């Protein structure tokens, strides 16, 4: 289980997360929802070790990973799909996946069967330069790249951002399929309500650097008041 306790973190003197606490349930899809600037990305970056928290703790299955180097945290089988995708433009699709296998020290061939099952387009375009992909295809590649390491927990930072709605639906369907077929925990940071409702089981609302409310996704469809309160829709 991923446990965040009393976390305060930010950039320089400006603390975005203020005494933030959150428990991510194992094997479930959780969504972290909130407006821009409320601390969603800061929380994911803190979990990944990209930001060193000023105070508080992050534990994974009881082990403290607060402030550890990002490659050590990645080695604890936490996969991260950053905002903006950050794929390697000059590498082919295959090289992007190969790099992830080298980094995670896993057998690429063994993992490719799963990856190509979930994302068949990557098999068809394995030799294509990733930079020539559309935004949606790059997002698929970024998710596949994170999946190579067979993560226990997958962190996704706004996977729908800048992507056409039909591809967003495809990505949501694939992530749902992955979540159903594996026991992977997913923490999704998102503002796209359709994607949240399609995918998430547990929803956490963040405002001013703290978790203000949580609910089951099933309840949200009948009572959208929380969405109105925290997303303004």
């Amino acid at each position, binding site marked *: 289980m991923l446990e965040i306790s009393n976390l305060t973190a930010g950039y320089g003197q400006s603390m975005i997360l203020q005494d933030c606490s959150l428990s991510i349930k194992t094997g479930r899809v959780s969504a972290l929802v909130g407006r821009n600037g409320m601390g969603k990305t800061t929380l994911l970056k803190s979990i990944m070790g990209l930001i060193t928290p000023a105070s508080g703790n992050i534990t994974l299955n009881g082990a403290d990973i607060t402030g550890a180097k990002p490659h050590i945290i990645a*080695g604890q089988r936490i996969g*991260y799909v*950053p905002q903006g995708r950050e794929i*390697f433009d000059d*590498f082919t699709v295959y090289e992007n996946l190969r790099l992830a296998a080298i*980094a*995670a020290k896993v057998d690429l061939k063994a993992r490719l069967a799963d990856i190509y099952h979930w994302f068949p387009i990557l098999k068809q375009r394995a030799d294509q330069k990733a930079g020539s992909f559309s935004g949606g295809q790059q997002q698929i590649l970024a998710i596949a790249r*994170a999946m190579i390491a067979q993560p226990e927990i997958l962190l996704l930072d706004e996977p729908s951002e800048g992507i056409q709605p039909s591809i967003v639906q495809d990505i949501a369907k694939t992530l749902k399929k992955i979540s159903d077929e594996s026991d992977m925990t997913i923490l999704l940071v998102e503002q796209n309500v359709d994607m949240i409702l399609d995918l998430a089981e547990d929803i956490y609302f963040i405002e001013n650097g703290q978790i203000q409310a949580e609910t089951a996704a099933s309840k949200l469809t009948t009572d959208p008041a929380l969405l109105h309160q925290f997303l303004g829709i």
Partner: protein
Amino acid sequence: MIEIAIPLMDALSHVLILILVALGLMIIFGLMGVINMAHGELFMIGAYVMVMAQQWGIGYVGGLILAPIIVGFLGWVIERGLICHIYHRPIDTILATWGLSIALKQAVVLTFGPEAQSAPLPFDMRVGIGVFEYPLYRLMVMGASILLICMCFWVFKKTDFGLAARAVIARPQTSEILGLNTAKINRTSFVAGAALAGIAGALIAPTISVDPQMGLGYLVPGFLSLLVGGVGALSGVIVGGAAVGGSGSLLTNWISPVASQIVVFLMALVIIRMRPNGLIGGRKK
């Protein structure tokens, strides 16, 4: 024919050594953003190892093996002791490595004296190439340089380490979140760049006078090669090295060395002015 063939061969020999030096600079700069002002001294120490190897009685082959090991180890000490503390501070790295270059030069002066040393040629034969004869050792240096350059390209383009290193160059933070230990890759690359300078120095030592100031003669054209060829692409080093080293070496056949240096600098200025990303870099995008 002979009038042009021999200067061309000399220029090619000079270009290949320059490319080896510039490749080391490029690997270190490309990966870590570190402008290593002490790279010329690493080259010079490689040459001194070759001189000493002959005096220690381990011969030419011993020197050739020992030079990249000793200079690579020195690179490891420099990275651990100095560079790793000042990453992402470009001005500080320039100042620190410049200070280091002075310290290394003075250490060599104190140990071996300021006078030039020489390493004997391992063999002093000339071989016929068509209508002219050329020293066999120079041909061997050219062959070894081509082999090392090809090896560098192979490592960077084909191996797992090369893919990881190129990833660190392109997106260091993303590489880290995928699980790559970027600090370790940087260190390995710094050692490789230093070892490359060491072996280049050892290879060239029997053909030039080895003195504490020799590094500068390769550092400046090495940096110029990077700028002319384009920082970021390995192939840029070859184009830049050929343009800077080739023109400089060829011009000395017709004009004085000082005048040829001035012409090379002017040519580099014009190229950089017209193509700020270099001959290869400028073509991208």
